[in-house]
């Protein structure tokens, strides 16, 4: 008997991406650059988060023409973003043959109460989180991969660090609790008891957890890996940096993610990369424009 879309097949692809870099790309040419640099997957977008932030207005799923162009350009997996709660955008992405759907706070939410019921799909989903409770809520809705949110399009790693520490700190805390305390904790985390118990027993999330939202340099990528990320999403950090050095920076971030614990290698690959993207100080962003606040 053949079964497609099983949980093991969905989480399995994320396991295969571990230790790798997933890069935001907006056309076939960028997708090729990412693949040549050693990206494990690309995220097909109409605009990178920094440009979405600058443009304002409603940000939606990318044009299917654009997504197909990128699918046809590379042999590595292609991901694409749907708005939070917009299950029809997700249906369209599945029909296009996208390998992973990111239900993403980078786009304008379509539903302020409900996320997509991801169990309805054969294609796997990745979702953002800021803490352990949010991660477990997304997993209970069927997410097969998690990423910490950070603050997309800022080139500022501070929120990514905060969220990774929060998730992993939460796991360490949960691990140390007594069995009889887990019922009340499940209520507090607003997450199903079974998932809370699983994390308590195993000391990790049941799915892979990548870092996202603010990586701009090889050092940023290695920092997130040392803090316990399984891999790294780089959004604006590559294609919003100095153009002449884009391919070199992309390759350097891949190497830094593989050898994150090796300062000598990090020093070597961090040399001569041109100017990184211009960063944004988080306190300068109006509250209403904070992407990480989207979703619950």
């Amino acid at each position, binding site marked *: 008997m053949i079964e497609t879309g099983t949980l*093991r097949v969905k989480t399995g692809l994320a*396991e295969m991406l571990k230790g790798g870099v997933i890069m935001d790309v907006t056309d076939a040419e960028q997708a090729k650059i990412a693949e040549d640099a050693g990206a494990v997957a690309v995220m097909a977008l109409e605009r990178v988060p920094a440009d979405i932030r600058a443009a304002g207005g409603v940000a939606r799923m990318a044009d299917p023409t654009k997504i197909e162009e990128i699918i046809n350009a590379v042999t*590595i997996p292609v991901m694409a973003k749907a708005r939070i709660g917009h299950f029809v955008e997700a249906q369209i992405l599945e029909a296009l043959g996208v390998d992973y759907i990111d239900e993403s706070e980078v786009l304008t939410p379509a539903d302020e109460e409900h996320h997509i019921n991801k169990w309805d799909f054969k294609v796997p989903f990745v979702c953002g989180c800021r803490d352990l409770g949010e991660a477990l809520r997304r997993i209970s809705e069927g997410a097969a991969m998690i990423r910490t949110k950070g603050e997309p399009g800022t080139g500022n790693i501070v929120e990514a660090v905060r969220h990774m520490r929060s998730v992993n700190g939460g796991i360490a805390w949960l691990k140390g609790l007594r069995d009889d305390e887990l019922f009340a904790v499940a209520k507090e985390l607003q997450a199903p008891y079974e998932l809370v118990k699983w994390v308590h027993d195993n000391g990790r999330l049941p799915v892979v957890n990548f870092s996202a939202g603010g990586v701009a340099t090889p050092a940023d990528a290695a920092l997130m890996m040392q803090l316990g990320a399984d891999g790294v999403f780089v959004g604006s950090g590559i294609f919003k940096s100095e153009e002449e050095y884009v391919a070199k920076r992309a390759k350097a971030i891949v190497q830094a993610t593989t050898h994150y614990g090796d300062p000598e290698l990090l020093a070597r690959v961090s040399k001569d990369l041109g100017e990184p993207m211009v960063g944004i100080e988080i306190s300068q962003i109006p509250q209403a424009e904070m992407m990480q606040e989207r979703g619950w």
Partner: protein
Amino acid sequence: MNNIKIGVLALQGAIREHTQHIEALGATGVAVKWPRDLSEVAGLIIPGGESTTIGKLMVEYGFTEAIRDFNAAGKPIYGTCAGMILLAKKITEGNQPLLSLMNIEARRNAFGRQRESFEADLDIKDIGLFKAIFIRAPWIETVGESVETMAEFGNIKVMARQGSLLASAFHPELTGDLRVHKYFLDMIKEA
């Protein structure tokens, strides 16, 4: 023979799962991050992951020659999915770094995209019925001289052995079943 060390090529991919299987069999798993790490292991697993990424990093860090030498010394190597592609003598399409050790031709993403990824029961020679997980998996298009096909899905070849080289298109490390890893451990013991 108790403390056999088995390396897992730790450039990218499902390194943790293979290491857990190795340790569950009572052997020691070693993350192979640099070619020098190969000197301390008796066998090597090349895990699933992105074959283009692993291939590029392999070249970058001088693994290609080091792994060929490891093989020439008679030490067993097992490649799963991306690992199988990297072991293959050639691939049907595209141009990417390969170890070109095993007399097979592999087709990348042969079964399709992620929505076509699947689980199925296979009958593996010397092992028996096995729940196989295929993820954007390759298949073996053709086998050459001295290669023994160990499992087929329909009439598609998905697992093969050539002397001290073992390759599967699927992922036994994603199941709780240790038999394929046990088979590889026995290959190391016999080497």
